């Protein structure tokens, strides 16, 4: 405990919370969008595809700025959601939103690739056995996509842990509320001699990310072992 200050521990805890919820809540949407892009043809598909990739293309500051414009208390969406008690501006929820949006293209791509790899013949077989589209998706497509979903989730988690530019622009940096690990690291790097302190936090980030990676690899391995045989 002595190694990190109380405020730094708070940043660690917050980063974990933000990354977790960013991934957990965007995952269903990510799966849905990935499925849409992988298996359906509809007008405007390329637009959806482009929008999903947008956060990757734009400098994070721009994304953060656009988030502020739309989800801020004065923004159209922010104003719409506020009466419902959903507030993003200057809250950790906003950090989670920013992280989720920045991580979304990575998540969607991974899941989409996995969905595309599922043999449509198996889905057809399920349909002949009486499963409707929805059930086919739930009982066949989804389980077979598991390795991709795990990969997508871990990519998104890693990205969420590292996201900085959009987050600080959107929800700024309020210690204990929106100060994530990357914000803290950034702050240290701004002042002469801050490198050592920054490195401590970098190491914490790395340890967390490695742990998450190893866990995800084990999960994915189990999922594909189940599919592979034995």
């Amino acid at each position, binding site marked *: 405990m002595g190694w990190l200050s109380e405020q730094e521990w708070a940043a660690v805890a917050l980063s974990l919370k933000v990354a977790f919820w960013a991934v957990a809540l965007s995952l269903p949407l990510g799966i849905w969008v990935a499925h849409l892009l992988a298996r359906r043809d509809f007008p405007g598909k390329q637009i959806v595809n482009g929008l999903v990739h947008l956060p990757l293309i734009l400098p994070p500051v721009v994304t953060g700025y656009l988030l502020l414009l739309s989800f801020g208390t004065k923004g159209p969406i922010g104003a719409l959601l506020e009466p419902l008690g959903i507030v993003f501006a200057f809250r950790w929820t906003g950090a989670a939103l920013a992280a989720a949006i920045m991580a979304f293209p990575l998540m969607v791509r991974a899941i989409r690739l996995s969905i595309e790899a599922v043999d449509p013949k198996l889905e057809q077989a399920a*349909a*002949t056995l*009486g*499963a*409707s589209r929805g059930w086919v998706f739930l009982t066949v497509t989804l389980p077979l996509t598991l390795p991709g979903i795990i990969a997508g989730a871990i990519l998104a988690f890693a990205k969420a842990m590292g996201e900085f530019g959009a987050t600080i622009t959107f929800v700024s940096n309020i210690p204990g509320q929106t100060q994530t690990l990357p914000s803290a690291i950034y702050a240290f790097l701004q002042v002469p001699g801050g490198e050592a302190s920054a490195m401590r936090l970098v190491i914490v980030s790395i340890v967390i990310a490695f742990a998450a990676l190893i866990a995800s690899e084990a999960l994915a391995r189990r999922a594909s072992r189940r*599919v592979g*045989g*034995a």
Partner: protein
Amino acid sequence: MTLSVDLTHRFAGFSLNVAFDAPPGVTVLFGRSGSGKTSVVNAVAGLFAPEQGRIVLDKTLLFDATSRVSVPVHRRRLGYIFQEGRLFPHLTVRQNLAYGRWFAPKEANHADLGQIVDLLGIGPLLDRRPGALSGGEKQRVAIGRALLSAPRMILADEPLAALDDARKAEILPYLERLRDVMQVPMLYVTHSAAEVARLATTVVVLEGGRVIRQGGAAEVLADPLVTPTGIRAVGAVLEARVKVHHADGLTELEAGNQSLFLPRVPQSPGSALRIRIPAQDVILARHRPDGLSALNILRGTVRHVRAGEGPGALVTLDTSAGPVLARVTRRSAQALGLVEGVEAWAIIKTVALAPTDIGGP
């Protein structure tokens, strides 16, 4: 339940143009590799939408290209046994088998899991995943999965191709029971004349995407001009009735007013049977032969003799049990003086009436 199929589709390099009406029972699609059998089955299942056509099952319109009707696959409730297994790799064998039950209506006539598992000999596999099953094991699970989905109709695409004769002999009676007792109609693809003879109510012969012959199993198999899968398939199918089970393990049948002997069959006295007599298993004689190990000798009159391209000839003998076909050499036909109108005896080996060639009507 009747199935009416009429479809036209052009693939690059192959065009399909198939129409047939199938009465209740088992309709066998028969034809060489690449003749369009699987395509027809896929169209019935709803997995392939032909450019033109209409498919009606009983009174339900399943597909109509003109009015753009197409009942979704999962509502058709057709138990499809695929040519290539298609087991769900992420589910255990047990879960694969149970998959269709989930979606079947509660009131449907469900087959019994235990019974099917025993029939298919897949008991020891239940908790395994399909990945490392042997070819035949996969096929058996696929059969079980379709049977257990309480289908309105079964679509079977060469379901027994990967299985050994002994296993086939175990599964065929079950399919017969489905057909006769549970009255489940089937569309059945096979290359095996034995399976055709045993199961088929109707045979539809495909060649190059077209129906070249359609009719009752007896009729089609007796036609030497229709030999899509080789001359060995030709044979007569006789209707018979179980007369008595003898103590030495033989069952006596009556066909016309003639007696035929078979290794014991399970049917009880009085029940009707169909027996197939492959033309090449019949020997002809001009006089009633004597002192032969063959128990079944039918008297008849030669209806006609058709000489083939090779050294053989196909002789049709009208007996009181029905027409019997015999393949003999032209040399023998001449030596014996087999010409239209003469009397002759057909000698059929009892044991040549093998179990796989016997079925209910």
